[in-house]
């Protein structure tokens, strides 16, 4: 009766230590780069050193004669079979989607684009031979700045020009909102280009045996990848198996169908041998898709008391050289979030997607929502400054009150729940907000050379991607459902198969907690399987903070079916009416007679033996369920950041950071806190440290972790976290949490930096707010006579 030793409710909300840790802490890991197969060969890519050029010749002869080299190929060798890398989100009917061959054949459009591949018996020989490939280029003009790329005389990235699409959205009468508005504020914000920088570099192993393909890849999306590999290469889908073994972080960067994955499959087929490719970090910085890279023009109109009347957003978004999996859709995920938690009468949004001769951009943690949250939260601070009121006060005058939920925003989203008052009150208390404001005023009066700044971010976001019908209406190429199945084994243990594909999120633990709670079986008796299209044949994978809110609900549906079947069988075995059977703590019994009953494990064994099943009931106790959410998930919260800014050096130091998040019900608080910590760190990284920099010839200057400053423990503060709870509309009451920290923290930090410098007349610092940028802004302010 082990099932009865644990009250079922105790699993949800319990700080279970993770099942995944045992292998990860001892080195018994299964990273793709660990894979060794008999006869396996190693690939090394030759990449373009030019940002834009015509390929005039590729000479592979020297490489082919090098020791250990088995083969070498250029783009021409794949021309008939490589297809075009897919863009699954053509956001408008007239969008320009250029052909994107996995290996360039006649023209390269960014530094790092693959132009040849060498295959050798070990990775050193492959690297040597790649260096011996001689490629001749005829340079073409580069296109690097999206602000000038649309001018008539700009060089072109593609024949069709540099504009990919324009997408617009409008609600309410914007002209009326701005007409005679007492306060109108316009700002231009820069979202710098970022490199996602998952710690595990991309890695691929491809094998072709008797026409059947297996691809191991460090990917977030084994199911989507399988489908699209079939579409791109023409290999029948049923002959492709994709396995995502242990995957070392993604943050969107492994939500992709990459050139290297396609080419590995094609090379394995050509040679009849398994091939491996693992990128170096430098190669990855060049060729893992980048994130953000937008110019944002934002305008608000408000009444004299600070009440918002209208909001207008005009974006230029850098697509890079090609459209990859969801490149054009990323800004759209932000389009609905600029109004954030605020009420207003009118809203208009326009985004223009622009091609440049740089690495394509695509989803990076938050994907569109960090950009939106940054712009609106930054300009709300400007509104507060304009009116001379506290930034939290001006927010409160505009936010949706807790009694107004559910609330349909001006962007037509229906927010199901929230309590901005409660989260803000708790955050203020934890930070000691009022005391810090007092200290700030005193230090400003004293002309302290080290200024205190307090930054506010009262964010919300839309995640839990996504209702399939909504995705369809936005021209996205797939659905937003998730799949789960449950297999009760004869011994009473449970196999759970999930279509979501974790890469650090702890699904094996959290999913076990959900199933233990639903079925009343011990946490330890549950095994969660995922990340292999042969083991978990259906799924939409992991991104957009969707796994719990969508995949977790699929699990609940599968558990429902198991319980219903077991109840039917129990009634038959006990010769009772099914309506009299109750299920409590993993045990079915006749109402009013708790002694007459069977555990779910006993029923599992009975269905295996199948000696005494009701007529028409199939042996075995298992189920499948698919869940398609009817709404997005809307986590929210209040993040407060206090910074010390040294006005003599420009150095910004985070003194304290408080995050109060409302993510609904919590399955595992340890995992949730970990997601919040990591999310905050990534948002701080954008605010203070990270930027992908290209020179004026289109060379990436930040190709290493010495140049691209992923922060270390010494660069980051400790975080104070807490939660409020407004349950979401799904049965688990859960919202997504994977991206919330990143979405919230960037504006909190930059608002704090600007708050510290406002007495000098400074109202913006371009991210990342490096000491140099802060120092220069102070110099400029003083030269321009800003009040010191």
């Amino acid at each position, binding site marked *: 009766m082990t099932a009865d030793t644990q009250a079922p409710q105790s699993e949800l909300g319990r700080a279970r230590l993770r099942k995944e840790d045992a292998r990860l802490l001892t*080195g018994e890991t299964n990273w793709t780069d660990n894979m060794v197969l008999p006869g396996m060969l190693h690939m090394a890519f030759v990449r373009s050193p030019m940002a834009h050029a015509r390929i005039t010749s590729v000479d592979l002869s020297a490489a082919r004669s090098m020791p250990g080299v088995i083969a070498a190929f250029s783009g021409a060798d794949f021309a008939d079979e490589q297809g075009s890398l897919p863009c699954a989100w053509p956001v408008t009917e007239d969008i320009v989607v250029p052909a994107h061959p996995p290996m360039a054949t006649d023209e390269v459009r960014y530094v790092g684009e693959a132009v040849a591949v060498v295959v050798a018996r070990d990775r050193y020989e492959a690297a040597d031979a790649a260096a011996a490939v001689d490629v001749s280029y005829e340079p073409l003009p580069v296109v690097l700045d999206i602000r000038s790329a649309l001018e008539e005389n700009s060089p072109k990235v593609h024949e069709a020009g540099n504009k990919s699409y324009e997408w617009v959205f409008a609600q309410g009468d914007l002209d009326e909102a701005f007409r005679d508005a007492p306060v109108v504020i316009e700002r231009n914000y820069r979202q710098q280009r970022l490199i996602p920088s998952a*710690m595990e570099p991309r890695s691929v192993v491809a094998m072709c045996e008797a026409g059947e393909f297996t691809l191991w890849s460090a990917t977030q999306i084994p199911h989507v990848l399988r489908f699209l590999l079939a579409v791109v290469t023409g290999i029948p889908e049923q002959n492709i198996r994709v396995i995502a073994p242990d995957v070392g972080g993604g943050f969107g960067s492994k939500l992709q169908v990459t050139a290297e994955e396609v080419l590995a499959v094609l090379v394995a087929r050509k040679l009849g041998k398994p091939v491996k490719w693992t990128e170096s970090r430098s190669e990855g910085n060049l060729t893992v898709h980048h994130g953000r890279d937008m110019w944002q023009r934002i305008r608000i109109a408000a009444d004299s008391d600070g009440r918002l009347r209208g909001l207008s957003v005009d974006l230029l978004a850098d697509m890079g050289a090609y459209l990859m999996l969801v490149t054009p859709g990323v800004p759209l995920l932000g389009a609905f979030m600029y109004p954030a938690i605020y009420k207003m009468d009118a809203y208009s949004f326009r985004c223009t997607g622009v091609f440049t001769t740089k690495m394509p951009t695509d989803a990076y943690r938050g994907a569109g929502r960090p950009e939106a949250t940054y712009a609106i939260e930054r300009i709300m601070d400007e509104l507060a400054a304009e009116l001379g009121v506290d930034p939290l006060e001006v927010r409160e005058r505009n936010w949706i009150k807790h009694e107004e939920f559910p609330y349909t925003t001006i962007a037509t989203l229906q927010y199901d729940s929230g309590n901005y008052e409660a989260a803000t009150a708790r955050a203020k208390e934890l930070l000691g907000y009022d005391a810090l404001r007092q200290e700030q005023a005193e230090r400003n009066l004293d002309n302290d050379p080290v200024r205190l700044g307090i930054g506010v971010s009262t964010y919300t976001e839309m995640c839990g991607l996504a209702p399939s019908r909504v995705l369809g209406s936005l021209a996205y190429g797939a659905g937003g459902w998730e799949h789960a199945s449950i297999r009760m084994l004869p011994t009473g243990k449970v196999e759970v198969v999930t279509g979501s594909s974790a890469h650090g*999120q702890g699904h094996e633990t959290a999913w076990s907690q959900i199933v233990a709670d639903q079925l009343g079986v011990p946490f330890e008796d549950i095994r969660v399987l995922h990340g292999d299209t042969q083991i978990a044949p259906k799924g939409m994978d992991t991104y957009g903070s969707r796994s719990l809110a969508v995949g977790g609900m699929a699990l609940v549906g599968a558990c429902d079916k198991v319980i219903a079947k077991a109840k039917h069988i129990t009634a038959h075995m006990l010769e009772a009416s099914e309506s009299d059977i109750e299920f409590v703590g993993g045990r079915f019994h006749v109402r009013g007679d708790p002694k007459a009953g069977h555990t779910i494990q006993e029923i599992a064994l009975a269905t295996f033996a199948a000696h005494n099943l009701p007529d028409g009931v199939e042996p075995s106790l298992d189920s499948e369920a698919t869940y398609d959410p009817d709404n997005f998930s809307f986590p929210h919260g209040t993040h407060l950041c206090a910074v010390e800014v040294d006005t003599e050096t420009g150095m910004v130091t985070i003194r304290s950071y408080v995050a109060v998040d409302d993510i609904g019900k919590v399955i595992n608080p340890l995992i949730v806190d*970990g997601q919040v910590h990591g999310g905050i760190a990534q948002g701080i990284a954008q605010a203070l440290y990270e930027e992908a920099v290209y020179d004026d010839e289109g060379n990436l200057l930040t190709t290493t*972790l010495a140049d691209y400053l992923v922060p270390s423990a010494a660069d980051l503060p400790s975080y104070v976290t807490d939660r409020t709870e407004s349950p979401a509309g799904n049965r688990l009451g859960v919202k997504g949490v994977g991206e919330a920290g990143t979405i919230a923290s960037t504006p909190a930090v930059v608002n704090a930096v600007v708050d510290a410098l406002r007495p000098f007349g400074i109202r913006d610092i371009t991210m990342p707010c490096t000491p140099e940028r802060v120092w220069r802004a102070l110099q400029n302010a003083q030269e321009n006579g800003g009040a010191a």
Partner: protein
Amino acid sequence: MAKITVTVDGVTYTDDVEPRLLLVHYLREQVGKTGTPIGCDTSNCGACTVHKNGVSVKSCAVLAVQADGTEITTIEGMADGQWHPLQQAFHAEHAVQCGYCSPGMIMAAADLLRNNPNPSDQEIRDGLEGNLCRCTGYENIVRAVRRAAEAGASS
């Protein structure tokens, strides 16, 4: 080719290696110690940290021939019947998410605690500056190292 003799996690291996072979590639591909991962090629990330004669080194910045005659300990050699206190603490404090940085982080932390058995939080942060994590924001890593220190991990 050069002949080297290296003791890895208590087992002695003699191998012919190319002079340019990196220690991390030797460990992963010749000895089969795939518990030690590679995160970069400029010795910035620390994922490949191991101990060479008891001192932490980034095994991507050491040639296999430089390890001749030394004792190497990897993450796979840290447990001695039971998990090392750092492994236990990383588990207990949820200092692991994707786990890719964890082996190097634990090996670096072990060396940190050997030099400074009772570090302050700031000393932990400064001591782990050469090891990058993208998932945890370091909060729970700092807590785990503190917990391991309190459990006497340095002894």
